[in-house]
């Protein structure tokens, strides 16, 4: 959706035409749901978070001045709503050792099949802190630039770089540490 068209819809909503919010939801629902499902790894929660994102966006439309892209602004709301939802639901698995102390072995997944890899990566992502998971999602999965991630997460560019580097290291560490039994259970399911 073109930015000028987005601004037209926003002006209409601001002037009281609630129905003009429908094309905005239609146009951005896939994008919002995509980031929500990647951060939460829970379809039901992701849909709930995606709905909350649009409700918050609607209520806060007066704050949107058009200084950034509407999609960036929406990403920001979705990002914070999603990581807050994980925190509230306690969806961080802590059954492994402290991920900070694990030496990262980036070749640990080399022998796995594609589907197995996906499951392992998802399991590893679930064990990261909500903020780390959010940053990894934005940078690696949503393929946004560091500059865009810094705007969405309200962090400085250097801080984003450091946090992503650490999160990546933790992720590889967790992948390397996932128990062999779990690996086998995935293999023979």
């Amino acid at each position, binding site marked *: 959706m073109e930015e000028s068209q987005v601004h037209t819809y926003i002006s209409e*909503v*601001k002037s009281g035409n*609630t*129905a003009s*919010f*429908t094309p905005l*939801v*239609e146009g951005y*629902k896939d994008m919002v*749901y*995509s980031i929500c*499902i*990647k951060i939460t790894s829970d*379809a039901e929660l*992701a*849909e709930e978070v*995606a*709905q909350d994102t*649009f*409700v918050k966006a*609607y*209520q*806060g*439309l*007066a*704050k*949107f*001045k*058009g*200084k*950034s892209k509407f999609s*960036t*602004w929406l990403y*920001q709301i979705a990002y914070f709503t999603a990581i807050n939802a994980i925190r509230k639901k306690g969806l961080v698995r802590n059954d492994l050792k402290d991920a900070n102390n694990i030496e990262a072995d*980036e070749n640990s*997944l080399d022998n796995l099949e*594609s*589907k197995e*890899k*996906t499951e392992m*990566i*998802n399991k590893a992502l679930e064990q990261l802190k909500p903020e780390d998971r959010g940053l990894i999602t934005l940078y*690696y*999965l949503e393929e946004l630039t560091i500059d865009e991630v810094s*705007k*969405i997460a*309200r962090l400085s560019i250097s801080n984003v770089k450091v946090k992503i580097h650490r999160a*990546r290291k933790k992720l590889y560490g967790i992948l390397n540490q996932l128990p062999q039994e779990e690996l086998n259970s995935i293999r023979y399911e």
Partner: protein
Amino acid sequence: MNKEIEDKNLFDHINKSEQSEMSSNFTHQVMSKVEHLEIKKSVTDKPLVGLVGWLMFILFGGLIITSFIIAYQTEEFSLSLPKIDYSKIAPFMNIVLATIFSIAALIVIDKFLRKPKNG
């Protein structure tokens, strides 16, 4: 192998994997929630000291400086600064300094408290 290529390979598995889809009436559900809500009015930040305040402050300062110059003006030409009896001015100066300091402090606090936001 280059780290970036390795990361790309790793995360491509998730991007290419089948993602669950949201319910077909997603938009309808959002719109039914939104219809009962009002858009929150945006709060605009106003400066602690406005234009009128600054003008009054400059006028006040100007008046004080002018009054000092007039009060201690001597008709004789002298390169040395006029002698001022500070004991007479001290209590008055304290008020002026306190005012300047408080305004400066308010401006600094205000600048630190406000954070730039997207949008």
